[in-house]
Structure formats: structure tokens, C-alpha cells
């Protein structure tokens, strides 16, 4: 039960942290998004840089990287901000691997506990026979509790893992969209690389 309790504590910690971190307004800061959408040309980049220094977050970091490298060739700039974006995406997805591991391991740990419990029960049976219903039912009940605990930790963990993974992916996709739009608006004129490349991929 102790490993299961640890799994439960870890999983809940990750869920709490991700619930706080992966808020849409926290990642896609409305000030930056509004500024990008209202941006008319490269001449407003200075204000954007100032904005990114005051507002922290993955999008601000990405936007700052785009603005600081706007004078580079588009291909070079895209490659650079793709690196930055990958780092930010990794930060967004950090911790989800714990949730995924707990989701996979908790039921197995529960099953393991049940097997050990059943071994004890059969040991009792070998000593006093199958008749002592109270002795046997206690052991079996204890054994089954571990499976129940494992499943009750594993199932929510899996649900939350899928939810947060999907949410992080959505956010990364939006960050990618905004950084591409920004790069398009502030990049030096004359660069004509293909526009279909994925900035963060």
C-alpha cells in the first residue's frame, strides 16, 4: 500500500501543478496575444520587446525570441524560434510523464499486492483449512483492497494525463500559430522561404 500511496501523492501533485500551470490565460497572455493581433509592422517591435520583458511565460519567451531575431533570414529565424518553441513545449509537458507512469504502474502495483495477499491466504488455508471463513475473508479482502486502490489511482491518473497532454498540445499549437503570425509580420522583407513550415516542429 505504501508504493500506491506514494503514487497517489505524486499523481495528485502533478494534477494540481498542471492545473495551475496549464491555464490558457497564463500561457497565452492576453496582452501579448492582443498586441500580436493588432501589430501592423516591424516598427512596433520595440514595444513588443518591452511587453515581453514585463510579462513572463512561454509565449513571452517565444515572442521575444522572434522579435530579437527578426532581422535574420526567415529560414534562420524560423529554425531559431523552433528551438526556443521546442524548449517551451517541453516545459509545458513536463511532469506528464509522472502521471503517465502512475497511470500504468498503479494497477500493476495493486495486482501485485493482491497476488501477495492471496499467497498469504493460501498459506493460511494450508495450515487451518478452507473452513475458517473469517480468517480467509479477511485476507482476501485485504488482498483485493490493493487492486481497488491501484485502479482508483490509475484510472483518474490516466484520465488526467490524457486531458493535460491534449491541453498542452493545444497550447503549443496556439503558440506556434501566434509566433508564425508574428514572424510573418515583423520579418525582414524579401525573404521568401516556404511558409508552410512548422515553426515549433
Amino acid at each position, binding site marked *: 500500500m505504501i508504493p500506491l500511496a506514494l503514487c497517489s501523492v505524486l499523481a495528485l501533485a502533478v494534477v494540481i*501543478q498542471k492545473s495551475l500551470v496549464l491555464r490558457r490565460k497564463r500561457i497565452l497572455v492576453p496582452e501579448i496575444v492582443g498586441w500580436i493581433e493588432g501589430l501592423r509592422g516591424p516598427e512596433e517591435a520595440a514595444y513588443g520587446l518591452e511587453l515581453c520583458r514585463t510579462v513572463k511565460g512561454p509565449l513571452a519567451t517565444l515572442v521575444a525570441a522572434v522579435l530579437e531575431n527578426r532581422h535574420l533570414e526567415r529560414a534562420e529565424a524560423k529554425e531559431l524560434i523552433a528551438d526556443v518553441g521546442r524548449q517551451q513545449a517541453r516545459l509545458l509537458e513536463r511532469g506528464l510523464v509522472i502521471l503517465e507512469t502512475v497511470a500504468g504502474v498503479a494497477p500493476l502495483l495493486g495486482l501485485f499486492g493482491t497476488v501477495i495477499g492471496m499467497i498469504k491466504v493460501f498459506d493460511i488455508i494450508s*495450515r487451518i483449512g478452507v*473452513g475458517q471463513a473469517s480468517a480467509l475473508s479477511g485476507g482476501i479482502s485485504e488482498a483485493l483492497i490493493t487492486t481497488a486502490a491501484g485502479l482508483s489511482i490509475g484510472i483518474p491518473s490516466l484520465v488526467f494525463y490524457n486531458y493535460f497532454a491534449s491541453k498542452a498540445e493545444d497550447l503549443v499549437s496556439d503558440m506556434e500559430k501566434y509566433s508564425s503570425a508574428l514572424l510573418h509580420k515583423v520579418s525582414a522583407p524579401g525573404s521568401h522561404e516556404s511558409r508552410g513550415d512548422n515553426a515549433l516542429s
Partner: protein
Amino acid sequence: MGLRQDSFTLALVVSLIAHLLFLSLWGATRQLHLPAIVRPRTAAEAKEQEKRLEFELVETPSNARNELPSARTHLLSDKSTRARDLYPAKDKPVGDAYSEGQSPYRTFSGGLSSPAGPESRPQPQPQAASESSRPAAAERPLEPGVAVAEEASERRQRARFSPEVLAAHPGGSSRAGLFGSDDATYRQVTFSAEELGGVTLNTYAWDFAPYVLEMKRKIRQNIYPPPAFTRLGIISGETVLRFRVLPDGQMTNLEVLGYTGHPSLKETSVVAVMNAAPFKPLPKSFPEEYLELTWTFIYSVTRQ
């Protein structure tokens, strides 16, 4: 980065607190809810529950000692009733623990010279055990009011003998001609109630018969010998236990007076009594400070 680690540490602490809170609340809830659920139930259903479990204390008529109990009674009151069958022997004196009757079991009765109990009935009683214990049960009251409690074999070897084998058995008694009969019931001239197997418990005092009957039922429900006895029939034994029942029904002073055979059967007997306790409170009219009972648990395997 540092901020993220801080947030994770914070989340970890929150998670830990949440778990501790959940555990403490869960424990508190279990403690709080249990009486909350049980109390009204006991209050509302106490009488009904009591009624359901209540055994009927039959008032002893002044001339009860001189009259025969009802032939149809299911209460074990004295050795006449204990051995009573549907067809009591008219020529036997009252008090003998046998009678003439019919039984669906192809079993035997009579003396020790009869073949040992065949396997064609679910819970056969070994002849030697039943014969040797019967006089003891009938003649050896240990406490005033309550005589000897006796546990006969609970689980038996499964049927392995066909009627043909029985019929052909050379050790059959003078009633061996009945063995080959197609009749579903078998007439037994000297029928022993103890051959029905299970627990036989008797008391000479009619007043407490329902109590000991209830006690017998409860202890019998808790007898679960190991498969080595019930299925394989490779172990056997006999355990003599003694314990006291206090007026409130609590069981104390459980001791093993002795046992023979396999120790697991001793453990079976001890656990059966321990699991059956506490019993019903003793009848108010019980004359002693406690009821002391001596039980003999006989686990014997009968084989040809």
C-alpha cells in the same frame, strides 16, 4: 525554472496534505457513520431482531420430569427425545437412547460388531465413535442443568461405495438382507440419533434446551475442518474443549483438555468455538454463575 520547481513542491505539499486530510476524514467518517447508521437500525429493529433470534423458553411444568416430551419436538431435552425418531420403540424403556425408526440412510446400527459406517450417506458417523460417546453423553452430566455437549464428525468422506459393494460386504450383520433392498428407506431397529452426524447436544433440564440448541447451531456453523479431513480423509482426531459462558453470553476460559490426531483438527475446534462466541445471554433463571461446557469434537474417517 526555479518557479516551476517551486510550484511542483507546493503542489506536492498540497497533495500530501490532501491525502492526510482524506485519510483522517475517512477514518472519522467511518467512526461517525457507523453508529449513525447502526443506531437507528438497532433502535427500530431491535425488537424485531430480538424476536427473530429469540429462542422460546418453555416453562417447565411441574410434572415435566415425569412426562414424555412431545414426539414431534425438535428440541433436545433429554436422552429420550434425543434418540426419538418418528417410530419410537414401544418395547424400549423410556430413557434409552435408541429407538426403532426409519432412515433414508443406508447405515447400520447395533453393536460394535456391525460394519463401520459406509460411505453412502453424506455425513456418516463411525460406529465406534458414536457407540463409545453415546453412553458418555447420556450418563455424564458435567454441570447441573446442562449435560454433555458432544460434537460428532462434521465432514465425511465422500461416497465411494456403491450399494452393490455394501450388499456384498461379508461383515454385514443379521440385517444384511436389507442392504440389497430397493426400498428408499432402511429400517433400523436400534437407531442412534448420534448417527445423524454433526453436533449432538443434550441437557437434562428442559428449561435450557432452547439455549443449548441455539449454542449448538452457532458452534456447528463454525466448524470447518481442513480438506485433508473433509475431502482426502487422511487425517482424523478428537478434541475435548472446555469453556465457560458468562451470563451476558461472553465465552471465557476456553481450554483444550486434550486432543488426539492431527493438530489442525484441534485448531478447527478451537476456532469454531471462538468464532461462535459470544453466545446469547444465559437465561435469567440459570442457577449458576456461569455455564461450563465440555465438548468432544470427533473427527473420524470411516473406511473399509
